[in-house]
């Protein structure tokens, strides 16, 4: 049943207009810590859902007594990041949700702050991308697509999300791997998944690249054909090869993870990693991930820091090739 108090509080917060980003939860597990989650995006998107799902699972697993979520949206997270670095400095009970999109935005926007200034806690989930074509398309396999791309990249318009985002990056990586100059690509950016999807369904473009979840239902219904996915290995229940299996040596997850602010103590950092690890291993988290098409790719602490550094280098290189950095 509905928890009336929580509901009314969110409603009151919403109606009060000033507190739109605030969501308070009552404490009901005494002793467990209270945490703060900073979401550098408006409510509703992938990072916000990650933050709110974490809040939900952490509380249902009695790992925390409650949490407070703050949203500061804008420019792929680069509006929120400086705030988190400056105003949340040293707050050991706080986490910021971020991911690959922020890495790209920091480079493309030439932002003053970057992710080396915050404390990596854990990479939690990733969404692999999918390469699809309309059902009527002459491309039957990823090889057909690559052949056409090699013949004349300007004749293969590909739809995806905003320029420099994960979809564009994957397209650039595919082209680079098969030896097509990134500057010749015909990439058609759309804001939001719905528009790109309708361009594909309406046969306006030759192919589309986006998160697998955006396309999965259309593929199931036979409206789109799935050529390949960007995961590291074949996925259960998905009848398509990975890009690697299709002969394109590219792997890409649009990953999301959490960071603590700069200046937190080692003890706080270790406690936070333990907390997030216990959450990520719970059944409740597994169920939420399955519902949302999130692949669990847990990586914590120093390994995570190393991964972020490598991914930043890779993204920077490809954005340079695409003329965006």
């Amino acid at each position: 049943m509905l928890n009336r108090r929580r509901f009314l509080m969110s409603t009151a917060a919403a109606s009060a207009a000033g507190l739109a980003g605030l969501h308070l939860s009552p404490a009901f597990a005494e002793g467990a810590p209270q945490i703060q989650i900073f979401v550098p995006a408006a409510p509703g998107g992938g990072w916000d859902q990650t933050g709110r799902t974490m809040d939900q699972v952490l509380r249902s697993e009695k790992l925390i007594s409650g949490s407070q979520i703050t949203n500061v949206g804008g420019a792929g997270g680069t509006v929120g990041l400086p705030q988190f670095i400056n105003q949340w400095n040293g707050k050991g009970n706080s986490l910021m949700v971020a991911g690959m999109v922020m890495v790209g935005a920091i480079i493309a926007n030439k932002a003053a702050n970057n992710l080396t200034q915050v404390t990596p806690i854990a990479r939690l989930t990733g969404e692999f991308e999918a390469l699809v074509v309309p059902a009527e398309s002459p491309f039957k396999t990823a090889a057909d697509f690559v052949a056409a791309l090699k013949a004349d990249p300007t004749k293969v318009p590909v739809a995806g999300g905003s320029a420099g985002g994960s979809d564009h990056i994957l397209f650039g990586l595919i082209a680079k791997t098969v030896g097509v100059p990134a500057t010749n690509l015909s990439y058609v950016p759309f804001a939001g998944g719905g528009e790109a999807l309708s361009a594909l369904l309406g046969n306006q473009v030759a192919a589309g690249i986006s998160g697998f979840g955006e396309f999965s239902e259309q593929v199931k219904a036979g409206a789109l054909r799935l050529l390949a996915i960007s995961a590291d290995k074949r996925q259960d229940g998905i009848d398509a090869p990975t890009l690697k299996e299709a002969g394109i040596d590219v792997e890409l997850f649009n990953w999301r993870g959490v960071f603590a602010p700069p200046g937190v103590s080692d003890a706080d950092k270790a406690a936070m990693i333990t907390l997030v690890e216990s959450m990520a291993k719970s059944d409740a988290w597994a169920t939420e991930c399955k519902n949302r098409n999130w692949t669990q790719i847990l990586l914590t602490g120093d390994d995570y820091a190393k991964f972020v550094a490598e991914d930043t280098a890779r993204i920077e290189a490809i954005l340079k090739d695409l003329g965006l950095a």
Partner: protein
Amino acid sequence: METLGHLAHGFSVAFTPVNLLWCLLGTTLGTAIGVLPGLGPALTIALLLPITYQVAPEASFILFAGIYYGAMYGGSTTSILLNTPGESATIVTALEGNKMARSGRGGAALATSAIGSFVAGTIGTLGVAFLAPVVVKFALAFGPAEYFSLMVLAFITVSAVLGSSSVRGLTSLFAGFVIGMIGVDLQTGQPRFTFGMTELLDGVDVIICAVGLFAVGETLYMASRRYAGKDEIVPLRGSLYMTSAEWARSWKPWLRGAAIGFPIGAMPAGGAEIPTFLSYAIEKKLSNHKEEFGTVGAIEGVAGPEAANNASAAGVLVPMLTLGLPTSATAAIMLSAFQSYGINPGPLLLTTQGDLVWGLIASLFIANVILVILNLPLIGLWVRLLKIPAPQLYAGILVFATVGTYGISQSPIDLVILYLLGAAGFLMRRFDFPTAPVIIGMILGPLAETQFRRAMTISNGDWSVFYKHPLSLTLLTLAFIGLVGPHIWAYVEHRRRRGPEHVPGDA
């Protein structure tokens, strides 16, 4: 008929007392957030997403649907009374609606917008129930080339709001283009006109611009003229609700607005603003009371756009429920709510989740009825706002505009922009530049640019896409007729009256 059976079943889901309560709660909340300029339905539903962990799917979607429809009703109230649009889809409503309120017909403006919203919302919801598969096919036929031609057609609406001087009107329009271009360019990822400010990378919110130019600018202007003793607001003239003459002038715009709004709303990139522009232009062309437009306020200019925005709100649900395509921010968030129940919205949604979808559609009908019942008695209360003495009223508008703007993203930069635009609005009003074309330019300019560049990317630089696609050609032809037709008509009329020997120019 199969659909009727489904719909009847849907009503049996929606008519349970608990779900009716959810619907009432949603519509009330929706009306309230619609009134506030900062909070939109998308943000509200996003904030309420956590309730999906606790209540049944039917209940939460009924709540969300109520909020969505309610916001469309509430948004017009402040447009009309305070010249402060609550939603981007109600910006056009402020043009005539606020003029009507000032001349004492605020009650009628509110009534025509509430009843028009009800009529159009019901027509739109019927469209969702019965026409969805057909409409969605038509909507998908729209590619970038067609959208660009639609924008060209929408641009002729500018001529309807240009005011007495086209030079001034076009200046405003181009100012709107520039404001609309601020931010990261979607096509290339490069920032434009941001002057190195991170806060400007996402562009200027159209609501802030409308509130700044209309509400703040107007308020400053009124304050500056206070001692001249002009522009007194008439609290109420004649009956509170609509007179029979006003009914007669309203019903056709309602139907035309619904006919424009529903299909454009169903298009993946159609949106709710363009149908209101088109409806306004058409009503101005067809009206027998053209002299009331922009002076005392013409009821047609409220009735048409209000109907159009509600029908388009229903239209947005067509691609969402038939294909799982989110085509507006609100739809995208409702789809993510589906996901938290483990339901993947897609083309199979109707077959796999029939109960849920038909329950949702049925609750939309109920929400519409509740909203009109809720809003009509409120009119009496609302118009009393206009009895507040001018200084207090205008001070209140400023507070309201400021708080609402801050609510959009809690960014102090937004407040700076609001007051800069307010100062610009004041100067524009002072020197007689119309402000509406700024908003139209700001919305249409970037849309037209994006669609144009997409079409050219896809066609690899070939211009012929715009006239080789039949739909695109049709729209361009309509735009051409809309632009040139009246001049030719006037010329022919002129010749017929004056006789063939008359040479144009020596009148």
